[in-house]
């Protein structure tokens, strides 16, 4: 899922400065699951903003809503219908939600309430960890399912670097060394010999470095037209 965190309340207040009427919009997918921008978090943020505005003696009308997905036109249009007459939508979707809502709902301002962090998994109670960097060309067959691009601090393809100690990364003893994990997994699978091969330079153009990405699928287009 896309993992996000709510921005500090002061930063959100600065964003909505001057607004009298805002629609806080949650998203029912990733950010609901990672507990940063679902219906419940919309409620909490709305209460905080109302209370703090009241304490400052400011007028602020807040309406709460949560749509299924802010990355889908159908649901974003639904959001647009609700936003009629509001000064801004405060989106609790990920960065995709904010961007796509802006694009679809041209007439209303859409402001971000979250910081989008990464593609990750819920690895422990209240803990989410990055597991994919969205590089556009998956290489984890070579590393038996563990991604060094997302999980090594230096995205090293022929690791580990000299800073790996006791299974931890040099940047922080709380961070696992991805290459230690890869080493252990390969050892367990009896495939350590594969790590003797040199991984060639990566083609980064498949990801962000190739410019903004677009995926076109003929088959998907055909289905739409039917």
């Amino acid at each position, binding site marked *: 899922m896309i993992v996000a965190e709510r921005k500090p309340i002061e930063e959100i207040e600065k964003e909505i400065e001057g607004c009298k009427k805002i629609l806080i919009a949650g998203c029912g997918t990733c950010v609901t699951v990672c507990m940063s921008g679902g219906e419940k978090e919309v409620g909490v943020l709305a209460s905080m903003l109302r209370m703090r505005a009241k304490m400052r003696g400011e007028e602020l009308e807040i309406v709460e809503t949560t749509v299924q997905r802010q990355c889908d036109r159908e649901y974003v249009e639904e959001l647009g219908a609700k936003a009629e007459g509001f000064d801004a939508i405060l989106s609790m979707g990920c960065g995709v939600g904010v961007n796509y809502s802006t694009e679809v709902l041209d007439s209303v301002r859409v402001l971000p309430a979250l910081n989008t962090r990464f593609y990750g998994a819920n690895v422990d109670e209240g803990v989410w960890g990055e597991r994919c960097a969205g590089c556009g060309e998956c290489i984890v067959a070579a590393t038996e399912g563990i991604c060094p691009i997302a999980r090594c601090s230096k995205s090293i393809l022929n*690791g580990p670097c000299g800073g790996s100690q006791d299974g931890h990364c040099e940047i922080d003893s709380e961070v696992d060394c991805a290459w230690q994990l890869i080493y252990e997994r390969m050892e367990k699978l009896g495939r350590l010999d594969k790590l003797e091969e040199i991984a060639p330079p990566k083609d980064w153009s498949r990801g962000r470095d190739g410019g903004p990405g677009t995926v076109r699928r003929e088959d998907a287009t055909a289905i739409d037209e039917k």
Partner: protein
Amino acid sequence: MKSGSNLERVLQSGQFAVTGELGPPKSASAKAIAKKAAFLKGQVDAANITDNQTAIVRMSSIAAGMLAMQQGVEPVIQMTCRDRNRIAMQSDILGAHALGMRNLLCLSGDHQKFGNHPTAKNVFDLDSIQLVQMVKEMRDEKKFLCGEEIRNTPKAPIVQPKMFIGAAANPFGDPFQFRVVRLAKKVKAGADFVQTQCIYDMERFREWMKQVCDRGLHEQVAILAGVTPLKSAGMARYMRDQVPGLSVPDALVERMKQAEDGPEEGIRICIEQIEEFKEMTGVAGVHLMAIEWEHKVPEIVERAGLLPRPQMKEKEPVAAG
């Protein structure tokens, strides 16, 4: 000769090599380089010019290398993968060769988190092994990473950068069993020489060297054992507790603590290590990293019996281009 560098010549002649380290200043001061170079001249076969070490902004390694050369110290240009992509790396390598530099040490680089610009974006387009491979292909295949020949126009002569290629090895990182495999990968990629992380844990180093020799790697690459003289018990503790990828035995910290004269004891330990390296199978030389202690280098190399440094023949003429 692959590069014709002094370091290559010394190693090829089979003599025990000595490399030093020269950290560029955190300023635009050319004098700072000249001052450090004066301590190293004639004492070492070449000196590493660090590349924004620990991710702290310093004068560029190539610029500082040029200044060191002017002072009669052959540079080993350090290049990290942290700050440059493959375009900038190849460009800098062309420039370094054109300026007369012939040794290049390929490193991953410390993460920017440790430095004075922790909010910086890092690059890591290539890793250190891929960098070694690229420098070798530029030298031996005379091609850029993209496959194009290293010539200005289709009719212009090929003028490839000829570097004596170095890599780092850390016998103290984990997983220990994989350390020698990673060295083998660097050798396969094209490393001509290897400098190790500073050694304090001689037992682990001996064990690692045994694995290196068992794989026959010492016959394919020149291994220079890294040493950094300790100045005090405090420094020993710092190296033990704060520096990732280092192993400092408690006994050594204790020895420094008991010493009446800390710096002298540190130098004594360093000399004892060098004496052992000279006899150790597979060790081709020593890499002396006297961090901000360059003025002690002459004393250390003298007392370790490493002087005079060999006077190698003049460099072979370099193709003009």
